[in-house]
């Protein structure tokens, strides 16, 4: 009996080893909404049939920090899986600077970089002169507005300046609140997380502020930024055109649902919301428009650059197969599918001129310029640390717990310590 058990165990053990070695799949780590995962699963099926390479998905959460955490743990442990993964542009620099990415441009490869947004490749994907990642899709903050409600007050265009946005909001709010007490003029991302930085940059840079670096010293507490942060505070507490829980609960999805349920006039969000707003069953379908964000008087509209990039682990044991996959993902056909199926914005700029894409998604024509002029967050490997500090202080100021000057002054001092530590 004992002998039987032992020999059976050995057989199973050997079978186990053999099995793992023979058809070890390429492991791809990706997260996101169910529709996004479905898209990747379908894509992987096609890729597997075409290249005879087995791919398995490691499904990650939606939250960007949790996705990063999962990758940091595997990469720090020099794990040979995942082989290939998606990275947020906000922390791509950290991963690249840690030496965790395998370069893409070996002589074997034929990734057509010319077809991509050159400014984005330069900012995010090249590290030490080498191509380390490819943009899969790009993001930039845009303004969504309700055509029907603006027409009600006799206005036929979206606001150009923040001042106009406040004015339009107050007027529409006065009308709508009679029937809908929960109606607000403007919804945006104010919770304490990365999205708050993106929103802040759009206010600040449209006032000619932002992160001002002089070598390794950072200036944040400048009048332009103070004014921008004051405005973010005032639109909640003073003009009351944004809900009071903006700075506690509002992330992308909370904002999107608030607007989509017909409870807001304006929305700041990423382009992904368009397809969802326009889907059948959405209360705001066919009542909305999309435009660049407003700006301060004398400033210019800008969008914070977001998006996800694909790269290969330096510890991958299947680098060649992974390169095939990266090529496949950055091909014209795949990028077009990404646009048509998910309504997302491909990293390839030539897809924006595609007739079929423009027919289904006419707003793509305008988005191209948004991405060409998108404003990046600092691409320093310690950006995440800077961001945590700034998020904390911006959130305090937006909540009204401290003044904008004090918040920016403390953030500047603490970030300077961070720069000193990681320089």
């Amino acid at each position: 009996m004992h002998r039987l058990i032992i020999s059976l165990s050995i057989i199973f053990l050997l079978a186990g080893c053999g099995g793992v070695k023979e058809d070890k799949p390429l492991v791809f780590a990706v997260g996101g909404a169910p529709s996004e995962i479905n898209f990747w699963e379908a894509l992987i099926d096609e890729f597997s049939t075409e290249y005879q390479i087995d791919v398995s998905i490691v499904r990650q959460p939606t939250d960007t920090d949790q996705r990063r955490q999962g990758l940091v743990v595997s990469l720090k442990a020099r794990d040979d899986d995942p082989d290939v993964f998606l990275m947020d542009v906000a922390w791509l620099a950290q991963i690249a600077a840690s030496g965790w990415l395998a370069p893409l441009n070996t002589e074997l490869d034929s990734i057509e970089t010319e077809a991509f947004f050159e400014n984005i490749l330069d900012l995010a994907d090249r590290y030490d002169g080498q191509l380390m990642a490819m943009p899969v899709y790009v993001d930039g903050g845009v303004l969504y507005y309700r055509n029907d409600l603006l027409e009600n007050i006799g206005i036929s265009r979206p606001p150009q300046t923040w001042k106009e946005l406040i004015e339009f909001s107050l007027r529409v709010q006065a009308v709508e609140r009679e029937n809908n007490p929960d109606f607000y003029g403007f919804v945006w991302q104010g919770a304490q997380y990365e999205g708050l930085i993106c929103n802040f940059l759009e206010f600040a840079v449209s006032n000619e502020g932002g992160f001002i670096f002089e070598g390794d010293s950072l200036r944040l507490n400048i009048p332009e930024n103070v004014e921008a942060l004051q405005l973010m505070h005032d639109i909640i507490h003073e003009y009351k055109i944004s809900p009071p829980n903006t700075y506690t609960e509002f992330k992308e999805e909370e904002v999107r649902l608030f607007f989509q349920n017909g409870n807001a006039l304006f929305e700041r969000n990423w382009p992904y919301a368009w397809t969802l707003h326009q889907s059948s069953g959405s209360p705001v379908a066919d009542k909305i428009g999309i435009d660049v964000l407003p700006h301060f008087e004398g400033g210019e509209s800008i969008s914070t650059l977001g998006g996800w990039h694909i790269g290969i682990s330096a510890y991958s044991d299947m680098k060649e197969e992974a390169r095939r996959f990266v090529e496949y993902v950055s091909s014209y056909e795949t990028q077009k599918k990404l646009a048509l199926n998910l309504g997302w914005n491909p990293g390839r700029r030539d897809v924006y001129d595609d007739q079929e894409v423009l027919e289904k998604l006419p707003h793509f024509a305008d988005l191209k310029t948004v991405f060409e002029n998108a404003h990046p967050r600092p691409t320093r490997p310690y950006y995440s640390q800077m961001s945590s500090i700034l998020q904390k202080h911006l959130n305090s100021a937006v909540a009204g717990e401290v003044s904008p000057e004090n918040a920016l002054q403390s953030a500047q001092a603490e970030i300077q310590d961070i720069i000193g530590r990681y320089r």
Partner: protein
Amino acid sequence: MNRIFSKDILRSYFFLLPFAVFIIAFILIPVVGAVINSLYKDVTFREREFLLFDNYISLFKDSGFWQSLRFSMLFILVSVPFELILGLIFALLLNQIRRFRGLIWAAVLIPWAIPSAISARTWELIYNYNYGLANYLLSGIGITGEPINWLGTNVGAFISVVIADAWKTAPFITIILLAGLQGIPENLHRQSRVDGANFLQGFQKITLPLLKPVIVVALLFRTIDALRVFDVIYVLTGGGPGGATTSLSIFGYNYYINGDFGYGSTISVVLFAVAFGLSILYVKLSRFEAGLR
């Protein structure tokens, strides 16, 4: 005689072995590893570099550290007594129950058995500004006209976290204290009643003194847990607003995920030292109590 004695000792060491291996593998090695790591600049995107105590010096100059230490201490001072009183009241009430005892005890334990992440998510919905139960109930009975932004102010977020934590952990204290109450002989109470003591006197002179060792144990567990609090806060406030509810664990965690393992370890070591100090304090306290008796 001597031989048997040493054989016995050997055998007892042998029985201790699994436990010792467990302690060494999962407690001692990680703690020593963290202490060693805390002496280095260990950032994923920089060369590893020996710093000696530089991390500790930066930590003690770091206003973020003092803010989270202050929060953690305040959290212990408010949540632990609150939970203890709540748990004690429940325990005293439950101790009176004679029928369906097992069923009711099990029901009391449910909040403690639910994973924190899930109960915190539930509390997040309760506190929600627009459609949360808390604001619905308050406006229903007409206490507040305007809904309250529970998680949006420093004080509100603090109270919300304490309530969510108390809901989950008071049952734990209840069960420990109930076990203690069961150990108090019934005839002591009967005698005191014969002597003419009322409920309060009985509680003060009999229940409380006999319950003290159990209370110290409950306090020790809860204090250490409150010091390390992570899950409830991570889900409920993420440390906000503006870092007002950043516990030491959340503070350290943020450095780890940002790739700074050296500084993250420094925070862990300090957290460990504080927890260790508190444990010794409690142990001393309970010995002192035992000595008095």
